[in-house]
């Protein structure tokens, strides 16, 4: 039984890497989603095209292909990334592309009168976004962002294939060393699910907070 605690430590170390990847990836995805989502709505055509190309490219291929491309092809272009950086980059940009559509949809669903009112009040473009549109659009984005974060969490398993020692990688190590398959895989399945539950609960709490004071608006 003593050796099992050693293997469990190994898997928990992997869980730490997975959590790290999920957090960093989500942060990058959030930035990318807002940048691309707003760029698609910008009244400047080249910015629109750029955002559309980004979104369609990352939604058109899978995270797996993107990760391998970032990890194996970019070094030839002189950009060498550590597995962790490659993972965060691929995951963040991939999920960010999905998030961009969410941002765009939520902003478009804010009623038109709100825009007209800000023009009537002579707010600048930035003030309009910051104080009127985004606060109303954010609660609409949150549930889908939560789902996207779970997709990102699930995507982190793929980084084990570029030799980053996340939870899935460690489970494979344990399998290779002990020959036991059931225990490591069931352990990580439960851990992944627990992570997903944490995200779901977190997003729900955030949603409650964000919608505070918005009753009656929608």
């Amino acid at each position: 039984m003593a050796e099992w605690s050693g293997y469990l430590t190994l898997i928990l170390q992997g869980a730490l890497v997975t959590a790290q990847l999920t957090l960093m990836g989500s942060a990058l995805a959030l930035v990318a989603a807002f940048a691309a989502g707003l760029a698609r709505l910008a009244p400047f055509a080249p910015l629109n095209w750029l955002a559309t190309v980004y979104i369609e490219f990352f939604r058109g291929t899978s995270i797996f292909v993107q990760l391998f491309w970032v990890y194996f092809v970019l070094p030839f272009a002189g950009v060498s990334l550590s597995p962790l950086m490659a993972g965060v980059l691929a995951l963040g940009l991939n999920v960010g592309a999905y998030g961009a559509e969410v941002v765009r949809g939520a902003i478009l669903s804010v009623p038109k009168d709100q825009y007209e009112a800000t023009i009537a009040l002579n707010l600048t473009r930035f003030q309009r976004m910051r104080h009127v549109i985004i606060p109303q659009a954010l609660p609409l984005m949150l549930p889908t962002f939560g789902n996207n974060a779970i997709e990102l969490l699930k995507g982190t398993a793929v980084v084990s294939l570029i030799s980053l020692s996340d939870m899935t990688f460690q489970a494979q190590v344990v399998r290779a060393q002990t020959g036991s398959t059931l225990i490591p895989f069931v352990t990580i399945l439960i851990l992944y699910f627990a992570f997903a539950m944490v995200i779901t609960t977190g997003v729900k709490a955030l949603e409650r907070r964000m919608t505070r004071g918005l009753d009656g608006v929608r």
Partner: protein
Amino acid sequence: MEWDWAFVAEITPTLLQGLKLTLFITLLSAIVAAVLGLVLAIARRSQNLLIARPVGAFAEFIRGTPLLVQLYFIFYVLPDIGIVLSPLVAGVIGMGLHYATYTAEVYRAGIENVPKGQWEAARATNLTIPQTWQHVIIPQAVPPMIPALANYLIAMFKETPLLSAITVLELMNQAKSVANSSYRYIEPMTLVGVFFLATSLVSVVMLRALEHRYGRLGK
């Protein structure tokens, strides 16, 4: 390292073979997902809570964990209890099961979107339950589902590279083996990306046509 067109021409046939298998796997998994998803959706609607609850929890669990780990589970754990599956079958079952939990939600939403008045009207005109499903509910529930289901078909196609992790020789694995034997990564990996992107873009155009034709089921 430079881009080498001669090498591209040399490896394209191998990669196309992988693409063929990828499409085949997508089709098989899609059938599994479509059928199993319907079963899950109906089970979750069951009056019997002893069926509905566990099925619901199971679907949530599958949806909250990575497909890759599920594939490992099917491929490495099941043989221990005497179920030995070929990589291809394990992959199709894994993908089909994973996406069935997604399609089940589409079916559920589609069925729930049929207004209650339709059920009552069918009752009032004395239709039997099978007649109600066949002539009233399904014709109204299915068309709005089509774009959403097609969306998951594309998603499945993009996920097939994961099967390379359990040694299925699909497009990604063909590319990896080519890359490993020739020590050239740029061309195979880029071509894989191009193949996936091209197929996805074509399917997205078709999806838009489907959405136009059948309308969109709420996301």
